[in-house]
């Protein structure tokens, strides 16, 4: 209120000031200058400023679009001819023209499967607990802030955690399982946050109706709340899985191999993944390896696009089912 009063006061002061000078009329020029200072239409200048502003925002949008096109173009130009069945089905080699990505591709898929089976139940479970069961206590609020914070921790720090906890303390070695555990930790906060958002959008009426018909809390959640929130949860899960597919740094930390001439068969085997193979190849000076890296990127992007397409498709199917 105080600020309002101040504003009124200063306004009335300025009014008396202007009328005062106008009434006095001793200086016509000063009066005119004052009027101009108060009201200046300057339509041309303002129109120009508007155009410049529009062009600036357009330009910044174009930066994003152009860089995407440029990126795709350069990768396609370099790597398209290298992508072949041979490339996908042969092992990496010292000779660049014979190098392939079989081990890395299998490793990536294997890892994603493991991460999904660890992170999805944990993440969705935590979200359901926090959203549907937990009382609004101080502890819960601390957990809230904590999870939001965890989502922003650099991925390489997770790598260090994984190195200490899974590789050394749990003695899993540089294995696929250790990698999957580290990755799961990395994407858990994201899954929890998106799943909670999805659960929040379920109307309260659904819960009250189920409870009113005598369902227990668990039955309500399982039969009504979860299916309704499913599209949102699925989107979050799949987006975070695609993040796990593309993430390199933590796996580099826990020691995924960059050269592997066999396919991992059990979760305890050594492994490598596509991004690490790409990192390794692009860090080499020879042009042939750069080409191989570009081809690897194409395969990786292909996998990611497929995963995202699955997400969209699944969301659409669930949405159709859940019409009210």
């Amino acid at each position, binding site marked *: 209120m105080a600020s309002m009063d101040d504003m009124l006061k200063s306004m009335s002061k300025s009014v008396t000031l202007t009328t005062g000078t106008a009434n006095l009329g001793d200086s016509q020029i000063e009066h005119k200058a004052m009027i101009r200072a108060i009201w200046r239409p300057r339509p041309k200048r303002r129109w120009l400023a508007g155009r410049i502003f529009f062009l600036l925002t357009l330009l910044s949008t174009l930066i994003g679009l152009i860089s995407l096109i440029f990126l795709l173009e*350069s990768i396609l130009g370099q790597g398209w001819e290298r992508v072949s069945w041979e490339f996908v089905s042969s092992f990496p080699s010292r000779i660049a023209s014979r190098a392939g990505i079989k081990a890395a591709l299998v490793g990536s898929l294997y890892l994603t499967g493991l991460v999904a089976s660890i992170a999805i139940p944990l993440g969705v479970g935590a979200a359901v607990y926090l959203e549907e069961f937990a009382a609004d206590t101080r502890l819960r609020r601390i957990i809230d802030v904590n999870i939001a914070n965890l989502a*922003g921790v650099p991925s390489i720090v997770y790598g260090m955690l994984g190195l200490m906890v899974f590789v050394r303390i749990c003695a899993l070695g540089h294995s696929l399982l250790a990698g999957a555990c580290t990755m799961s930790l990395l994407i858990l906060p994201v899954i929890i946050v998106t799943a909670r958002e999805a659960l929040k959008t379920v109307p309260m009426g659904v819960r009250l109706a189920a409870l009113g018909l005598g369902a227990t809390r668990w039955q309500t959640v399982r039969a009504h709340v979860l299916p309704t929130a499913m599209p949102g949860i699925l989107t979050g899960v799949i987006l975070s899985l695609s993040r796990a597919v593309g993430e390199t740094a933590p796996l580099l930390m826990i020691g995924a191999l960059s050269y592997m001439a066999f396919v991992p068969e059990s979760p305890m085997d050594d492994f490598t993944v596509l991004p690490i193979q790409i*990192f390794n190849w692009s860090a080499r000076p020879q042009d042939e390896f750069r080409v191989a890296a570009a081809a690897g990127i194409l395969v990786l992007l292909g996998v990611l696009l497929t995963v995202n397409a699955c997400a969209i498709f699944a969301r659409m199917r669930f949405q159709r089912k859940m019409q009210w």
Partner: protein
Amino acid sequence: MITLGIVLVLLGEAVLFFEEVPLVDFITGTIWAPMFEPKSFGVLPLVCGTFLITCGAAMIGLPSGLGVGLFLNDFAPNWLRSIIKPVLEILAGIPTVVYGYFALTVVTPLMQRMSPSVEVFNAASAAIVVGVMVLPMVASLCDDAIRAVPRSIKEAGYALGATKCEVALQVTVPSALSGIVASFILAISRAFGETMAVTLAAGSTPKLTLNPFESVQTLTAYIAQVSTGDTPQGSLEYKSIFAVGMLLLVVTLFFNMLAYYLVKRFRTVTE
């Protein structure tokens, strides 16, 4: 639980490290040479490299991200919006290694063609790609923040005869400011913690320099370098990455808390 785990692990190893290297030397030393004799652990060159790249990325990513946000809200017709949004999402979903490859094979040769003194590994191309990398994030967060501005106050601005530009800059941006600032802070903390693109593009020479065309090393790149080489567990270098990681964690946590606080304040103001 997980935070506690991270803090404990990092603290444990970092304490071991600081038993051998005093904290003051670590923070104020200007030479980082863990691999050579005499060993020296002054973190400043790494911080400097990180700072250089983060600033460069912020200079590119933040204004254009905000620009995209404004464009999407004020100018873009619906059909254009429905094209740009997915494109930004794709851009956000591209793995960071790909950006590193992009910097090394496209951006750097381009810069070398313009001036031959540019080194193969340089901070500028790393900064450019990291800037492009954070752009979609800033854009979509800004877009959300701007969208949350009540329509009525915009209409009030138009009713007073303001042009689109004036409403955007004097009404919309100030009222969405805390959301916008929060998105900026998140982007900076992401650029700060970015590893792969920077490792590939900026090289690995810890140097106390502000020249963006030289090769530098960042905190994250150092961690990656040590962990890919075969450093025996328990050695001083091995412990040093945990000290560096600790620093990284503290800074990003600080940024994130700041952003979280701002967003919270912003919500209470609009409601």
